[in-house]
């Protein structure tokens, strides 16, 4: 038996392919939306992986450093190093800001870290790691900075000595790594006017500026200008110890909050990007409904255009299931073309998105099954119309 659907498609292939391309672009948008969500999840995981930490120690009663702000004294890490099961501990700061280069600026997450300690970028694609204590930077290539560029963070200029990749914040902003001391200053140091104002206030306070206590005022002012805060301490666990056990020790004895990698993933994925995920989910549902409506409309219209032929086919003895199969095959064919176009389009345009778009093969398979199911479902309207055609209409009268 010849394929009626195949012949119909071949006969009007240009109309069919153009319709498939239109549908395909819609499917491409749908796949891209799924890819955006996957990219956000992957960014979150990469952020955790690249930090090199097993445990994140943050301010008590906060879910920092990525989901909430957290502030710790920078000597906390010494106390943590004394706990059993802790191999390494290092301070880090995170600050999202506009990093300037000449007349332009780039939104980036500035990370302060101690060279050679957890928090340092894992690998470089060009240049070298930071070796000086001040004014050197390693930037993610998504910032657009090049080796040798000079960038400005707050009051100081930094020399880009290394480039890394896939180092982005949970919000998708590329990272710029600078020495911890510089980062502390950038994050916590007040501007000159504020410092002068603070000094004047302190000097005007008689309890802090006692005539009989030389050096007290200077000591207090020096203390006010010093930056002793960081956002988190990244901890690496010693072999044989478990992150959860160390985390419990930290919570119990140090009065700090500690998160394991699993807990931090939960915070990033289930809390930080949950709203975005729901937003994308809504888009996916709407796009699926729109795709179904378009396929249903196209197949229904194509079927209505063949009512007389369907009546003739029924009159000359064609089975209902043959006619239904013809319409179903056309809907699936349209879905197949649409999916191929959509997948190709999504693959082509994904790298141009400002945020990472991760097109997973599992999502592709699920998308294919969903498209076929939607097309099959959408064809039912046309099949019902075709099966209702009375073969007597071919005779007229």
């Amino acid at each position, binding site marked *: 038996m*010849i394929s009626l659907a195949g*012949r119909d498609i071949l006969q009007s292939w240009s109309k069919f392919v153009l319709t498939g391309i239109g549908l395909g672009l819609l499917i491409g948008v749908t796949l891209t939306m799924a890819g955006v969500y996957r990219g956000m999840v992957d960014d979150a995981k990469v952020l955790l992986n690249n930090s090199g930490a097993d445990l994140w120690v943050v301010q008590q009663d906060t879910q920092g450093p990525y989901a909430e702000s957290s502030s710790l004294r920078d000597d906390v890490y010494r106390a943590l190093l004394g706990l059993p099961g802790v191999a390494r501990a290092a301070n880090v700061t995170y600050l999202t800001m506009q990093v300037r280069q000449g007349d332009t600026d780039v939104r980036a997450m500035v990370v302060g870290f101690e060279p050679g300690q957890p928090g340092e970028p894992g690998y470089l694609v060009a240049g070298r790691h930071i070796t000086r204590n001040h004014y050197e930077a390693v930037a993610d290539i998504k910032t657009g900075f090049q080796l040798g560029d000079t960038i400005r963070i707050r009051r100081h200029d930094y020399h880009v000595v290394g480039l890394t990749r896939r180092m982005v914040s949970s919000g998708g902003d590329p990272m710029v790594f600078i020495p911890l001391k510089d980062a502390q200053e950038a994050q916590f140091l007040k501007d000159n006017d504020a410092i002068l104002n603070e000094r004047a206030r302190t000097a005007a306070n008689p309890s802090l500026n006692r005539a009989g206590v030389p050096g007290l005022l200077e000591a207090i002012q020096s203390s006010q200008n010093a930056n002793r805060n960081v956002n988190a301490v990244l901890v690496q666990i010693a072999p044989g110890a478990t992150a959860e056990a160390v985390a419990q020790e930290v919570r119990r004895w140090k009065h700090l909050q500690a998160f394991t990698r699993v807990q931090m993933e939960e915070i990033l994925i289930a809390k930080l990007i949950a709203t975005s995920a729901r937003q994308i989910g809504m888009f996916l549902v709407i796009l699926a409904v729109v795709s179904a409506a378009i396929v249903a409309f196209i197949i229904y219209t194509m079927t209505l255009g063949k009512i007389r*032929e369907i009546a003739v086919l029924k*009159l*000359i003895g064609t*089975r209902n299931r043959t006619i239904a199969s013809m319409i179903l095959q056309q809907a699936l064919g349209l879905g197949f073309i649409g999916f191929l176009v959509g997948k190709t389009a999504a693959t082509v345009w994904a790298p141009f998105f400002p945020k990472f778009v991760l097109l997973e093969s599992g999502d592709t398979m699920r998308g294919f099954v969903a498209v076929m199911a939607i097309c099959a479902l959408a064809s039912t309207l046309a099949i019902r119309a075709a099966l209702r055609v009375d073969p007597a209409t071919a005779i007229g*009268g």
Partner: protein
Amino acid sequence: MPGMGFGIRIEGLSKRYGEGDTAVDALKDVNMTVAPGEVVGLIGPSGSGKSTLLKCLGAVIEPTAGKMTVGDEVIFDNGWKITDLRALRRDRIGFVFQAPYLIPFLDVTDNVALLPMLAGRSNGDSRKRAKELLEALDVGHRAQAQPSQLSGGEQQRVAIARALANQPPVILADEPTAPLDSERALAVVRILNDMARQFQTAIIVVTHDEKIIPTFKRIYHIRDGKTYEEAGQALH
């Protein structure tokens, strides 16, 4: 009456639409017999019941009463005697319409071969049969063409080939010459007569085409749902 036995025989056939006060008797005690190899005309004004009779004969609507015999088999006797009307239409009744109604996405050969394929014959046998018929109807040279590439006369000949594809004992032709000029209309009638003789098929031609009415040896007039037979004067 050429041939032996019946191609199709109708006895006391009636069809009523609706019930009670609104009931309309479209056919009233219709009688008709067409022998194998014979072509008869069925003539009547609009609303006389031609299409209703054709639909009853074509097993697409159910008569209210009467008896219909196709070949040796009673297919209707105050109710269908055959459960699979679709197979009846496919295997035992051929249709030729006012417009050819060829399937536009199948080429000429497959338009004809579709019926044997639907009956379960292999693609090869079906296409062979289609090509033989197309040759017999002098459109073999257009076997690979699409219907849209054919002239009106060629399309109607392909439609006749399709009707003959499963060698049905009966062909119902609903105004097959309506869209054709005199020359082509007479050519189509000549083909129908040739095919009827060649394949021993009983053909009923519904028409009010004045050009072809004189070509029928026998003519049934239908008026107000009743048939009246009249001997014609065939040109052949």
